[in-house]
């Protein structure tokens, strides 16, 4: 009996084991190909297709996509002031939401990391995670109801002679800040937890006032965590369109993409590249600030 015939008689699993034996590159390749296929095909792949689509156009009558190379979409993006205004409005709101969340999140995270008892800490973590258990849409629709003319916000403010913001940009800022707050608290909390208490004691022993300790010791050490959290709040605000539609009449990058998809897919693709470019710039700055070093 020849050697091949013997090999053929072995069960498949044994033959597979044999195939991988002594071939480390094949082993690593097989192990990585699954997750990498996911990453490359679904993430990078769709981005590539998006990039290609941005250079196509549509036939004005039928709305059919015409494949080819044209800079038309980018020209109207740059030349028409309305799009600059929309991009700037979106970025401005994203920055504002990020700043708001950072200011609110820091004291909460600090209390959790350095002051609260073990039990209190656990309770606070649950309290912060709890809103994430309910659907995004339910939360936004609740805000729409609360911000309404006859909503609970106006009802609560009325005795003081005040009036709620109603629908509009202020409402967008308010709702977004609420929605993304947990994404800011958790990284800061994790960052603060890692600062040894001995550093704070040392600073105090050396005679630093509490504010100086905060400014010179805690903040520099926690700053990368704040930046990491800001990546979430910034990017989530940048891409949102449902909140914007439900609590304002303003146009954001997301809402224009959503309404362009139906009749001008290539233009929507070109517009979708804007938040990507903004995010790359943002990440570059975050990297400079050391957001990826300790996380």
């Amino acid at each position: 009996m020849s050697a091949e015939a013997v090999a053929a008689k072995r069960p498949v699993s044994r033959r597979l084991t044999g195939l991988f034996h002594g071939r480390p590159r094949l082993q690593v390749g097989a192990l990585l190909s699954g997750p990498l296929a996911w990453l490359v095909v679904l993430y990078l792949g769709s981005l590539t297709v998006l990039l290609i689509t941005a250079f196509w156009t549509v036939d004005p009558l039928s709305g059919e996509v015409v494949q080819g190379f044209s800079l038309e979409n980018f020209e109207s993006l740059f030349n028409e002031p309305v799009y600059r205004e929309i991009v700037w409005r979106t970025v401005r709101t994203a920055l504002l939401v990020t700043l708001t969340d950072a200011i609110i999140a820091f004291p909460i995270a600090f209390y959790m990391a350095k002051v609260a008892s073990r039990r209190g800490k656990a309770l606070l973590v649950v309290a912060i995670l709890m809103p994430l258990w309910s659907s995004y849409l339910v939360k936004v629709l609740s805000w729409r109801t609360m911000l309404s003319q006859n909503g609970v916000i106006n009802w609560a403010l009325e005795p003081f002679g005040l009036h709620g913001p109603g629908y509009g940009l202020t409402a967008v800022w308010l709702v977004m800040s609420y929605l993304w707050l947990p994404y800011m608290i958790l990284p800061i909390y994790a960052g603060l937890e890692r600062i040894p208490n001995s550093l704070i004691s040392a600073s105090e022993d050396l005679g630093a006032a509490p504010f100086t300790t905060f400014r010179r010791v805690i903040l520099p050490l926690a700053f990368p965590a704040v930046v990491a959290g800001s990546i979430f709040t910034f990017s989530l605000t940048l891409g949102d369109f449902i909140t914007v539609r439900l609590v304002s009449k303003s146009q954001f990058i997301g809402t224009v993409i959503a309404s362009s998809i139906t009749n001008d897919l290539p233009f929507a693709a070109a517009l979708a590249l804007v938040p990507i470019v903004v995010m790359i710039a943002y990440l570059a700055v975050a990297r400079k600030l050391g957001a990826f070093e300790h996380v």
Partner: protein
Amino acid sequence: MRRREAHPARTAWLVVGGLLVFMLALAACGGGGSSGGASGSTEGELQKVGKGEGAVNLISWAGYVEPEWTKPFEQETGCKVNNKTGGTSDEMVELMKTGQYDGVSASGNATARLVAAGLVDPVNVSLVPNYKTIFPDLKNQPYNTFEEVHYGIPHGRGANLLMWNPESVKPAPTSWDVTLDPKVASKYKGKISQYDDPMSIAEAAVYLKFHQPDLEIENPYELNEEQFDAAVSLMKEQQPNVGEYWGEAAKQIQAFGAGDVELGTTWQYQYFALQEEGAPVAASPASEGFLPKEGATGWSDTWMISSKAKHPNCMYEWMNYIVSPKANAEVAEYFGEAPAQSLACDETANKNFCTEYHADNPAFWKRVYYWETPLADCGNGESDCMDYNDWVKAWTEIKG
């Protein structure tokens, strides 16, 4: 022999590279496939309605496909009705592109696009017995018949309404100036509800046709640059007064019900829904022969069959059923529109329904401007009209 070391990084790059090539190849194939579809339907219309396929997938306006009349249809034909509601014509065209639907209740601003893109097939009207008794002024219209080929079965028509809250908007408006004349509309700053669709520009055009005759607007969907700019700037002046742009009926119903908006353009569907809720609403009632003095934009809808229909027999059954006297009367009364079927007028619960909605009064419809797809070529041979792309771009600009 020395064994080669595994090199994870290099291996990873090899995998990435391979997959990238694979994916681009896939994208290229996919792209090639879709570009071939544009030339569209050469197979043409059905010659004979055969046995139903057991189901029919529809895209419709809210209120067009309701259990009251789909249940009897399902029992009669064995075709199960799966319905998807579209909020705007653009959305419907997009849904039709997926090829997963058998038919659509298309308004005039979708039909030409659907035909041009080859997304719908001609309809053999001889296979739709109820077509014979449809009101003659709905047949062979530019939005349902292209180069003398029928592309659908008329469903019904109506005017877009001006709706207001009678507690805060006094006196009862008789003109669109309450939403469009900046001087009058500023009284209701932040309370105006405007349909979020480029078609709204035509509302301004209807208004200008009446108030600025020197612009010489004939058809509010066929605007040259000067007329178009005037309409767009009117909508831009309206923007600060708008409280909310609504893209789907439910959003407007909610906002009106909560008192966040107090007047604006609407459909009968929302008006009825709000009345049922007990919300304080009034509307220029078509039932009393009343449109705001300028006239109004409106719609005349057509059931069309997808060129990729998987259930063509069921779709033909549906097209015949929905314009059968009883079903057409039901949908017309439910939605609040004039039926397309002349015999439906004997079947309505309200015996005066057809008179109230002017179903058989062609003169009335002269002041209702059915949605159309704006085209560059608007019949004067000069192709100097603003096309739908211009309308879409302008609409983004108007909202700012």
